[in-house]
């Protein structure tokens, strides 16, 4: 049972870390747009290098 005295606080720490990580991600705007980033890996990454059409 003494194992519990170590494991349970460890769990709490992990939960606390998870909550902190989620808050950090939410405040960073990670969940604001769930549609467009899904496409990012499918598309090439170079910025356009040309003048606009006249």
């Amino acid at each position: 049972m003494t194992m519990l005295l170590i494991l349970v606080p460890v769990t709490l720490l992990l939960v606390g870390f998870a909550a902190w990580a989620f808050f950090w991600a939410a405040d960073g705007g990670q969940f604001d747009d769930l549609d467009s980033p899904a496409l990012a890996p499918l598309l090439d990454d170079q910025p356009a290098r040309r003048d606009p059409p006249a």
Partner: protein
Amino acid sequence: MNTGRVPCFHCGEPAPANGSERAFCCGGCEAATAWIEGAGLAGYYRARTAPALVPEPAADAAFSGWDEPAFVAAHCSDRASLRATTLVVEGIRCAACAWLIERALLGVPGVARVSVNAATSRLALEFDPRSAPLSRLVALLARLGYRIHCPARDDARAAAGERRASLKRLAIAGLGAMQAMMLSEALYFGAGELDLATRDFFRWITFLVATPVVFYAGWPFLVGAVRQLRLRAPGMDLLVAVSVLLAWAASVVETLRGGEAVYYDAAVMFIFFLLAARHLETEARRRATAALDVLARAQPELALRLDAAGREETVAVSAVSPGDRLRVRAGSAVPVDGVLQDAAAELDESFITGESRAVAHAPGELLLAGSIALGGPLELRASRAARESTIARLAELAARAQAERPRAARIADRVAGVFVVAMLVVAAIVGLTWWWIEPARALSVTLAVLAATCPCALALAVPAAIAAAQAAFARQGALVLDPDAIESLARADTIVFDKTGTLTTGRLQLGALEAFGASRGEALAEAAALERGMHHPLATLFRPFDDGREASAVHVFAGQGIEGRIGGMLRRIGTRTFATGEPRDDEGIWLGDGRRALARFDCADAPRPGAAEALAALRDSGMVLEMLSGDSPARVAALASELGVHAWRARCLPAAKLEHVQRLRSDGHRVVMVGDGVNDAAVLAGADVAIALADGAALAQASASVVLAGRDLGRLPALIETARSARRVMRQNLGWAIAYNGFALPLAAFGFVAPWVAALGMAASSLVVTLNALRLAHPAKQRSVEGRPEAPGRLAGASA
């Protein structure tokens, strides 16, 4: 679709086939594709899921307003050499658009940061105004087919903040609930084996994880409960708060004194599931609003006002008052409703019609705020202030319809309010009874009763379904202006159509012309003078023959024709009886002086493409179809048999149309009236549900409850189907919620249910109700009746 025409490679509009794999409808699309591919961004075409908008050619100079100090002061913030701003992009149809915009802008030297949110159509930019002026960036996007607006109100940031807060609460509730459940499991099943010290240790840990859930995640419920108490309007929040606080406080007391049982798990689970249901409902609502956003933002923030000397000054649109002279540059939007001066102009009214085509306007005609000037700059005299302009009013109506709760929801609210008080009383009685019989179980049973009987599902049943249905409507290009419209639409059994402009294209073609006593040219010119400035489709027919002669004392006789004086002579155009005094009527349009005929025009009007299929689908769904028209019986009968309309009436004046609709309603029918909103505003107002096919002129006086963008009748059957499903879902939800409460109450009162089971059951019931409603927002891939893939209008662009 005609043979020899294929969809344009860029925008999907019909384009002449040229034998090669790619065809373009216009030079603008071709240039846009060439630029996109030349810039190495061809991936856009592979990844996109919806065609682009037609790009509009315009000179850079047309966009110089974006660099004006007045705009910069209001919407930009400067940091060192960089300038930051947030703009609204119209025309984002799928996620690939967001990618294309980002890549295109990042390619311009001087642009430091670009971020596009496809869900809210927002573009956040940081750029160096010296090397990359905003006007150039906006011009570049315009050439790719995106229109940029400035955010009218900065509610987007507030909405995003709310969403983040809601997600954080949900996360805390989820994490806390999982931990609390795990620990409670040990307490329940290990009850016999745990020594007291370990049990208390577990209880204190549960206290640690449950407390943030109750006071952080559950904060909205606590705040809501206080508000409801202060307003003396007991509601769901009060019951939730009472149950949760009671469970939490009792558990703290039990933990401190080492009592029988703790109820942390019931409290946290209740909060978690209720928050989840609430979050889903808010999301459905947000999707419905996103479509509105673009509409609200089509009206520009700045206007170019001309002073007496004709000098331009840039002013905020709110400073424009009726009577001001304004200039609109090519490519920019009309700031307020106003009357076109000087020269004829072409405008793009796609912000409301969803169709990107040029609409010609003659001087003296009303231009709607939000229409885009094509061709050259134009001048107008403001006739309404910014807030009173059609588009602002429409956006406000739609926003109010979304914020307002429909009748069914208000009833459910009231029932839930009474229910809450009743349940608090029942819980108290049950608690006291158990206290008398078996004091040890009194608390646990009371908690179970409170949790099991919370009318959360009852309160969510209707609003969730309405929000989801509104989102589905927006996706199909329909704007809901009346919160009760969806329910009324579901109950409708009769659809009454206006003929001209609704079932027919309204684009008449002039056929045979007989002139009696006047030359043909003379007759046409006189007809044109009389019809000048009219919005009826007939008027456009004569426009090419307008030689500028003036008609004075012009008077419109609804359903009969127009009277005026030309060169001092009385002239009438309209039905034979009206124009010539001849009692025998026929289907021609007659020009006369009231006694004598001068000319007879024949004109034909083709049924709208897809109308027959749409009407067949409506007939199959059990609707009775009727048609009302001011036209002659012969033509109405021909169209009625062609389209398969059940009943029709010809030569109807608006008053007769209204009377007919009212008679149908008094006979117990539920009537949907479909019209173009121009000549039938009163009739629309008299029906249970009025659907206006959106058109620039129509909206100025629309009294519709639903506005259908794009004049596409093919969407009508799908809308009615959505409304009916919404009603079905509402009934299922209400039935489920009532059955659940009725079933759970006796079980809980007699002590058969543990508090955590009751909490789980109730919260899961709310979740079931919400998920059931969300089925509406994601309809199975529907194809419109015309057989072409779903093509939502601009209104729906943002939610795509």
